């Protein structure tokens, strides 16, 4: 059981200060109207490259793969409020907070061509997820609850790749950011976070000292940070575990990649597909230990066909490096583990 560390009692303070604040974000976040433009929040000073000093920038040690897009992540906390954490290291944000994430690709001229910025707003009734798409002039972004697709060409590994980049619609936001039907943040777990300004990390630890005792999670692509098994599981947790969880969108599959699996079958080892259809690729098992080529998990990660590809959302290219990690992981499993 997860319990809330008792020193996280900033709710009242947050509500009290947000009402009095002249910060435009306080009103925009509170709802109930969804602001039509991103500038309504005041998170950026006239462009995605100029985040407000009020925002706390951070990175993830193991991030979700999104078609090789670069991401810029920020936390907004209302004046006088404080971030807390639960015993598992999951950060707790007071009402009035926002999580902000921009997606883009390196521009030829340097810098980042930001396509969209997604916000998660912590309103009194719960979290709300909204996607904003930047205008061509880069000065502001417009709310697009229905999502859209944007053709993008970028360079990866010396090759030009073209994708029809998908900005998720509001429902798709929830498909991943969902626990038992409610919208939740996914990423901000202390052990997987890296703060760009040391003072931000210090402030959080000061409010939630128990965090200092938690060991950082491995970086999926850095063998110095963890064993192959740990890095592979961390990759699965971040890329698959938000749906493949007992309370997630893929709960009916019985395949749990969020770290909750207690037996081999729930992790996919020796498990037969349930509703995969043609995505089985004529294979019998999600993971055939020792045999990555015989594993449906690998086949689905290597596909870009929407009836086959996993994850279902936000991926129209293959994450070659991620596939390689999981191939090594499966190849290293003794073939009698199930």
């Amino acid at each position, binding site marked *: 059981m997860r319990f809330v560390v008792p020193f996280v009692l900033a709710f009242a303070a947050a509500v009290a200060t947000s009402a009095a604040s002249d910060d435009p974000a306080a009103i925009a976040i509170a709802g109930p109207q969804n602001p039509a433009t991103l500038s309504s929040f005041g998170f950026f000073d006239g462009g995605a490259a100029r985040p407000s000093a009020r925002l706390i920038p951070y990175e993830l040690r193991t991030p979700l793969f999104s078609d090789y897009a670069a991401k810029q992540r920020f936390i907004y906390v209302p004046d006088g409020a404080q971030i807390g954490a639960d015993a598992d290291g999951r950060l707790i944000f007071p009402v009035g907070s926002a999580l902000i994430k921009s997606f883009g690709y390196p521009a030829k001229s340097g810098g980042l061509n930001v396509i969209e910025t997604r916000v998660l707003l912590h309103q009194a009734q719960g979290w709300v997820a909204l996607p904003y798409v930047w205008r061509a002039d880069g000065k502001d972004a417009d709310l*697009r*609850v*229905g*999502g*859209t*697709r944007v053709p993008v060409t970028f360079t990866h590994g010396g090759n030009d790749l073209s994708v*029809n980049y*998908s900005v998720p*619609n*509001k*429902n*798709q936001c*929830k*498909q991943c950011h969902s626990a038992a*039907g409610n919208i939740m943040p996914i990423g901000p777990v202390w052990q997987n976070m890296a703060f760009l300004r040391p003072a931000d990390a210090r402030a959080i630890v000061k409010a939630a000292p128990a965090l200092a005792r938690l060991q950082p999670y491995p970086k999926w692509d850095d063998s110095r940070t963890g064993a192959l098994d740990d890095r592979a599981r961390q990759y699965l947790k971040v890329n698959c575990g938000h749906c493949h969880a*007992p309370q997630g*969108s893929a*709960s*009916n*599959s*019985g395949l749990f990649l969020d770290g909750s699996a207690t*037996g*081999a*079958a*729930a992790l996919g080892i*020796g*498990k*037969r*597909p*349930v*509703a*995969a*259809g*043609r*995505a*089985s*690729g*004529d*294979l*019998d*098992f999600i993971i055939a230990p020792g045999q990555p080529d015989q594993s*449906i998990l690998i086949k689905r990660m290597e596909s870009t*066909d*929407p*009836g086959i590809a996993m994850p*279902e*959302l936000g991926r*129209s290219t293959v994450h070659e490096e991620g596939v390689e990690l999981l191939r090594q992981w499966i190849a290293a499993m003794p073939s009698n583990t*199930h």
Partner: protein
Amino acid sequence: MRKLALIGYWAATPNPACNYHSLRHVVPMRIRELLFVGAAFCALVQPASAKTIAVSPGEGAQERLHEALIAAEPGDVVELAAGRFKLSDGLSLDVNKVTVKGQGGLETILDFSGQQGAGEGLLVTSDDVVLRDFAVENSKGDGIKSKGADRIVYHKLRVEWTGGPLATNGAYGIYPVESKDVLIDSVFVRGASDAGIYVGQSRNIVVRHSTAVENVAGIEIENSFDADVHDNIATRNTGGVLVFDLPNLPQMGGHNVRIFGNIIVNNMTPNFAPKGNIVANVPTGTGVMVMANRRVEVFDNVIGENGTTNIMIVGYRFPFQDPKYDPLPREVIIWDNQHSRAGWDPKFRGGTEIAAAMGGSFPGIFWDGAGGSEYMPVIQDDVPALSLGLKDVTADTAMAQPAPLARATSRPDGLPAIILPEAMEAAIR
């Protein structure tokens, strides 16, 4: 008499468009009987503030339709105009008490042939939703999925892969899962590479007045509790109606399923399921297949022209590690079905040999025999029935020791009918 006339109709109309027309001819007769009662209720179920959001096909249909589905509020109707909506991505609905209504299964078409993302055509994740009078064509994955969507109604829908039975088609046509109270009424499903109508890990389910053609499994009830499957037509599938239970899933122990009043004929489409899926093991030419469930009743159906057998009762044959899972079927009760020809081409190991030993034809009903007499089905049909006499559930069917199953002299009282919340029935009157 009407049922028998229909069999002739199916045999004479290979054109899929005709198939759907035939559905419209058959089903409304049943609906009309209910119209008088229904009119009074319709006015009551709509909240005062309900509004209709109209959406037409054409430029920007994807974003316009999706924005309508997102903007809808409880009580609203999203009304789709006639025509072809060319969609580039999956759609989803996450608002309770919304009706999505088209102008008919041939008139309003959600065309997913250009779909670039998402695992299904339409995904519903909210409660008290009614989907009616439209079609979903050629989605890349499943057709319409509803997950954790209680009291959902699917009515007069068409879900079709228009190229016919192909392994490259999506898995499920209509796919409610993890839901309580499910009504599927007067739908037409064709071409699913797994099951046309699939209800998984749900409870309190009615599938009726529907037609499943050229799917691997016509209608499948899996890991579910309390289901009535009645007055449907399942034809030209690989297997007509399946009742399965599988291990390693959050909900197991499927039970209390009634299959009655259906026409389950000529399910002879060669199995086109991608290997690895459980239905890839369904022998071509199967009428009804019950696997690893407790208390299944099969009665008053017209079943025939199925080359393997009309009714098959078997255990789950694969290795599994799941102490909570029971691989054996039990309390299967079969009576008053009208059989025609079956078993002339049994498509499982050892089937041909048994058929030869029995004078060329496999019987219309068989049980694998696993578990012994405690598990023996109760059969009161006027056709020969056989136990394969397998010593355990994983034994090779080629090692069968067939023995006739005697007609039972009595049977237990039947299960009660499934009753759905009145608002669900009212929604389609």
